[in-house]
Protein backbone atom coordinates (compact mmCIF):
# COMPACT_ATOMS: atom_id res chain seq x y z
CA UNK A 1 0.00 0.00 0.00
CA UNK A 2 1.23 3.46 -0.77
CA UNK A 3 1.19 6.29 1.75
CA UNK A 4 -1.77 7.85 -0.04
CA UNK A 5 -4.85 8.26 2.09
CA UNK A 6 -8.32 8.61 0.66
CA UNK A 7 -9.80 11.95 1.88
CA UNK A 8 -12.55 10.11 3.76
CA UNK A 9 -10.01 7.79 5.43
CA UNK A 10 -7.96 10.79 6.40
CA UNK A 11 -11.08 12.45 7.76
CA UNK A 12 -11.87 9.35 9.79
CA UNK A 13 -8.33 9.37 11.12
CA UNK A 14 -8.51 12.93 12.44
CA UNK A 15 -12.08 12.66 13.72
CA UNK A 16 -11.11 11.81 17.29
CA UNK A 17 -8.60 14.65 17.79
CA UNK A 18 -10.98 16.98 15.94
CA UNK A 19 -13.88 16.24 18.25
CA UNK A 20 -11.59 16.40 21.27
CA UNK A 21 -10.36 19.81 20.10
CA UNK A 22 -6.80 18.53 19.89
CA UNK A 23 -5.98 19.46 16.27
CA UNK A 24 -3.83 22.41 15.35
CA UNK A 25 -5.36 25.17 13.22
CA UNK A 26 -4.02 23.83 9.92
CA UNK A 27 -5.24 20.28 10.50
CA UNK A 28 -8.56 21.61 11.67
CA UNK A 29 -9.04 23.76 8.58
CA UNK A 30 -8.16 20.77 6.39
CA UNK A 31 -10.71 18.57 8.15
CA UNK A 32 -13.37 21.27 7.90
CA UNK A 33 -12.72 21.80 4.20
CA UNK A 34 -13.33 18.11 3.60
CA UNK A 35 -16.39 18.08 5.86
CA UNK A 36 -17.89 20.97 3.93
CA UNK A 37 -17.79 18.84 0.77
CA UNK A 38 -18.53 15.38 2.08
CA UNK A 39 -21.96 14.50 3.42
CA UNK A 40 -20.84 11.03 4.43
CA UNK A 41 -18.09 12.29 6.71
CA UNK A 42 -20.35 15.01 8.09
CA UNK A 43 -22.80 12.33 9.11
CA UNK A 44 -20.04 10.29 10.73
CA UNK A 45 -18.82 13.29 12.69
CA UNK A 46 -22.32 14.24 13.76
CA UNK A 47 -22.97 10.75 15.02
CA UNK A 48 -19.77 10.62 17.03
CA UNK A 49 -20.38 14.06 18.42
CA UNK A 50 -23.94 13.34 19.51
CA UNK A 51 -22.84 10.07 21.09
CA UNK A 52 -20.22 11.93 23.07
CA UNK A 53 -22.64 14.60 24.21
CA UNK A 54 -25.09 11.91 25.24
CA UNK A 55 -22.48 9.99 27.24
CA UNK A 56 -21.44 13.18 28.97
CA UNK A 57 -24.99 14.18 29.88
CA UNK A 58 -26.05 10.75 31.03
CA UNK A 59 -22.97 10.15 33.14
CA UNK A 60 -22.99 13.50 34.88
CA UNK A 61 -24.23 12.41 38.27
CA UNK A 62 -24.67 15.10 40.89
CA UNK A 63 -22.62 14.92 44.03
CA UNK A 64 -24.70 14.08 47.12
CA UNK A 65 -25.03 17.28 49.22
CA UNK A 66 -23.90 15.48 52.39
CA UNK A 67 -20.59 14.71 50.75
CA UNK A 68 -19.91 18.38 50.27
CA UNK A 69 -20.33 18.90 54.01
CA UNK A 70 -18.11 15.93 54.80
CA UNK A 71 -15.38 17.35 52.56
CA UNK A 72 -15.63 20.78 54.15
CA UNK A 73 -15.21 19.10 57.54
CA UNK A 74 -11.85 17.72 56.40
CA UNK A 75 -10.41 21.23 56.22
CA UNK A 76 -7.66 22.24 58.60
CA UNK A 77 -9.20 24.08 61.54
CA UNK A 78 -8.10 27.68 61.73
Amino acid sequence: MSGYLDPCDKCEEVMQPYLDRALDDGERAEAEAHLADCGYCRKRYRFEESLRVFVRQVCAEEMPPELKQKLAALRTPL
Partner: protein
Amino acid sequence: MGEPDTAEPDEARRIATEARDRVRFEEEALALADQVYRVARRFVSSREEAEDLVQDTYARAFRSWQSYTPGTNLRAWLLRILTNLNVDRGRRIQRRPDELPLEEHDYYLANRVAETGGEQVLDQDRVVERLSQDSIVTALSSLPDDFRDVVVLVDIGDFSYADAAQILDIPIGTVMSRLHRGRRILKGELADKAVE
Protein backbone atom coordinates in the same frame (compact mmCIF):
# COMPACT_ATOMS: atom_id res chain seq x y z
CA MET B 1 21.37 40.12 74.59
CA GLY B 2 17.81 39.54 73.45
CA GLU B 3 16.37 37.99 70.34
CA PRO B 4 16.63 40.16 67.25
CA ASP B 5 13.62 42.43 67.15
CA THR B 6 12.48 41.24 63.73
CA ALA B 7 12.43 37.49 64.42
CA GLU B 8 9.02 37.26 65.96
CA PRO B 9 7.10 39.47 63.53
CA ASP B 10 8.69 37.58 60.63
CA GLU B 11 7.63 34.27 62.01
CA ALA B 12 4.14 35.57 62.69
CA ARG B 13 3.91 36.90 59.16
CA ARG B 14 5.09 33.60 57.70
CA ILE B 15 2.45 31.72 59.65
CA ALA B 16 -0.24 34.16 58.61
CA THR B 17 0.74 33.90 54.95
CA GLU B 18 0.77 30.13 55.09
CA ALA B 19 -2.64 30.06 56.73
CA ARG B 20 -4.03 32.36 54.08
CA ASP B 21 -2.57 30.26 51.24
CA ARG B 22 -3.91 27.11 52.80
CA VAL B 23 -7.41 28.54 53.17
CA ARG B 24 -7.35 29.67 49.57
CA PHE B 25 -6.16 26.24 48.44
CA GLU B 26 -8.88 24.49 50.40
CA GLU B 27 -11.57 26.75 49.01
CA GLU B 28 -10.42 26.31 45.43
CA ALA B 29 -10.23 22.55 45.89
CA LEU B 30 -13.70 22.36 47.42
CA ALA B 31 -15.14 24.40 44.55
CA LEU B 32 -14.03 21.58 42.23
CA ALA B 33 -15.63 18.82 44.30
CA ASP B 34 -18.61 18.38 41.97
CA GLN B 35 -16.37 17.79 39.00
CA VAL B 36 -14.08 15.48 40.95
CA TYR B 37 -17.05 13.45 42.14
CA ARG B 38 -18.47 13.14 38.64
CA VAL B 39 -15.26 11.50 37.44
CA ALA B 40 -14.88 9.39 40.59
CA ARG B 41 -18.41 8.08 40.22
CA ARG B 42 -17.51 6.53 36.85
CA PHE B 43 -14.21 5.12 38.07
CA VAL B 44 -15.92 2.85 40.59
CA SER B 45 -19.09 0.85 40.54
CA SER B 46 -21.05 2.24 43.48
CA ARG B 47 -21.97 5.62 44.85
CA GLU B 48 -20.58 4.70 48.28
CA GLU B 49 -17.20 3.80 46.80
CA ALA B 50 -17.16 7.08 44.90
CA GLU B 51 -17.92 9.04 48.07
CA ASP B 52 -15.16 7.23 49.99
CA LEU B 53 -12.72 7.82 47.19
CA VAL B 54 -13.49 11.53 47.01
CA GLN B 55 -13.22 11.89 50.79
CA ASP B 56 -9.85 10.12 50.84
CA THR B 57 -8.71 12.30 47.97
CA TYR B 58 -9.59 15.52 49.77
CA ALA B 59 -8.11 14.30 53.05
CA ARG B 60 -4.83 13.65 51.26
CA ALA B 61 -5.01 16.87 49.25
CA PHE B 62 -5.54 18.96 52.38
CA ARG B 63 -2.62 17.22 54.07
CA SER B 64 -0.21 17.68 51.19
CA TRP B 65 -1.48 20.98 49.83
CA GLN B 66 2.02 22.44 49.83
CA SER B 67 3.11 20.11 47.08
CA TYR B 68 0.59 21.74 44.75
CA THR B 69 2.11 24.47 42.58
CA PRO B 70 -0.24 27.48 42.50
CA GLY B 71 -1.27 28.43 39.00
CA THR B 72 -1.16 24.87 37.67
CA ASN B 73 -4.26 22.78 36.98
CA LEU B 74 -5.71 22.03 40.41
CA ARG B 75 -8.43 19.79 39.03
CA ALA B 76 -5.82 17.61 37.33
CA TRP B 77 -3.75 17.59 40.52
CA LEU B 78 -6.74 16.35 42.53
CA LEU B 79 -7.57 13.72 39.93
CA ARG B 80 -3.99 12.50 40.03
CA ILE B 81 -4.37 11.85 43.76
CA LEU B 82 -7.73 10.20 43.22
CA THR B 83 -6.41 7.95 40.47
CA ASN B 84 -3.46 6.85 42.60
CA LEU B 85 -5.69 6.12 45.58
CA ASN B 86 -7.99 4.14 43.36
CA VAL B 87 -5.12 2.06 42.04
CA ASP B 88 -3.78 1.54 45.60
CA ARG B 89 -7.14 0.18 46.66
CA GLY B 90 -6.64 -2.67 44.25
CA ARG B 91 -9.98 -2.10 42.61
CA ARG B 92 -8.37 -2.43 39.25
CA ILE B 93 -8.11 -5.70 37.47
CA GLN B 94 -5.17 -5.26 35.18
CA ARG B 95 -6.01 -6.69 31.82
CA ARG B 96 -3.56 -6.54 29.03
CA PRO B 97 -4.93 -4.51 26.14
CA ASP B 98 -3.61 -7.18 23.77
CA GLU B 99 -5.97 -9.74 25.19
CA LEU B 100 -9.03 -7.74 24.32
CA PRO B 101 -11.21 -8.68 21.45
CA LEU B 102 -11.09 -5.69 19.15
CA GLU B 103 -13.06 -6.94 16.22
CA GLU B 104 -15.53 -4.11 16.51
CA HIS B 105 -15.08 -1.32 14.09
CA ASP B 106 -16.32 2.21 14.19
CA TYR B 107 -19.43 1.64 12.17
CA TYR B 108 -20.54 -1.30 14.23
CA LEU B 109 -22.99 0.51 16.46
CA ALA B 110 -24.57 2.51 13.69
CA ASN B 111 -24.82 -0.53 11.45
CA ARG B 112 -26.25 -2.85 14.06
CA VAL B 113 -28.99 -0.43 14.96
CA ALA B 114 -29.64 0.46 11.35
CA GLU B 115 -30.02 -3.24 10.50
CA THR B 116 -32.59 -3.87 13.18
CA GLY B 117 -34.36 -0.55 12.83
CA GLY B 118 -34.87 -0.88 9.10
CA GLU B 119 -35.39 2.10 6.90
CA GLN B 120 -36.31 4.54 9.64
CA VAL B 121 -32.85 4.61 11.15
CA LEU B 122 -30.92 5.58 8.07
CA ASP B 123 -30.02 8.77 9.82
CA GLN B 124 -27.24 7.99 12.26
CA ASP B 125 -28.28 10.86 14.48
CA ARG B 126 -31.35 8.95 15.48
CA VAL B 127 -29.30 5.99 16.66
CA VAL B 128 -28.20 7.87 19.74
CA GLU B 129 -31.77 8.68 20.67
CA ARG B 130 -32.51 4.98 20.87
CA LEU B 131 -29.88 4.33 23.51
CA SER B 132 -31.04 4.30 27.09
CA GLN B 133 -29.35 5.99 29.99
CA ASP B 134 -28.73 2.67 31.73
CA SER B 135 -27.13 1.16 28.68
CA ILE B 136 -24.48 3.88 28.57
CA VAL B 137 -23.71 3.65 32.27
CA THR B 138 -23.51 -0.15 32.12
CA ALA B 139 -21.41 -0.14 28.98
CA LEU B 140 -18.99 2.35 30.50
CA SER B 141 -18.61 0.36 33.70
CA SER B 142 -17.93 -2.82 31.75
CA LEU B 143 -14.95 -1.29 29.95
CA PRO B 144 -11.57 -2.59 31.11
CA ASP B 145 -10.12 -0.18 33.70
CA ASP B 146 -7.27 1.17 31.58
CA PHE B 147 -9.67 2.14 28.84
CA ARG B 148 -12.42 3.39 31.10
CA ASP B 149 -10.05 5.69 33.00
CA VAL B 150 -9.12 7.49 29.80
CA VAL B 151 -12.67 7.67 28.41
CA VAL B 152 -13.99 8.98 31.74
CA LEU B 153 -11.28 11.63 32.09
CA VAL B 154 -11.64 12.94 28.54
CA ASP B 155 -15.35 12.45 27.83
CA ILE B 156 -16.84 13.08 31.25
CA GLY B 157 -14.08 15.01 33.00
CA ASP B 158 -13.39 17.08 29.89
CA PHE B 159 -9.63 16.83 30.41
CA SER B 160 -7.22 17.43 27.55
CA TYR B 161 -5.06 14.55 26.30
CA ALA B 162 -2.09 16.18 28.04
CA ASP B 163 -3.89 16.42 31.38
CA ALA B 164 -5.17 12.85 31.12
CA ALA B 165 -1.62 11.71 30.35
CA GLN B 166 -0.31 13.52 33.41
CA ILE B 167 -3.06 12.23 35.68
CA LEU B 168 -2.58 8.62 34.63
CA ASP B 169 1.19 8.93 34.23
CA ILE B 170 1.18 7.53 30.71
CA PRO B 171 2.34 9.04 27.39
CA ILE B 172 -0.09 11.15 25.35
CA GLY B 173 0.06 8.62 22.51
CA THR B 174 -1.18 5.97 24.91
CA VAL B 175 -4.04 8.25 25.99
CA MET B 176 -5.07 8.65 22.36
CA SER B 177 -4.90 4.98 21.49
CA ARG B 178 -6.70 3.87 24.65
CA LEU B 179 -9.33 6.49 24.05
CA HIS B 180 -9.84 5.33 20.51
CA ARG B 181 -10.04 1.67 21.45
CA GLY B 182 -12.08 2.38 24.58
CA ARG B 183 -14.67 4.28 22.59
CA ARG B 184 -14.79 1.49 20.04
CA ILE B 185 -15.43 -1.12 22.71
CA LEU B 186 -18.05 1.18 24.20
CA LYS B 187 -19.80 1.42 20.87
CA GLY B 188 -19.69 -2.35 20.52
CA GLU B 189 -21.29 -2.77 23.96
CA LEU B 190 -23.91 -0.18 23.14
CA ALA B 191 -24.70 -1.90 19.87
CA ASP B 192 -25.41 -5.12 21.74
CA LYS B 193 -27.66 -3.24 24.17
CA ALA B 194 -29.41 -1.24 21.47
CA VAL B 195 -30.60 -4.35 19.66
CA GLU B 196 -31.52 -6.43 22.69
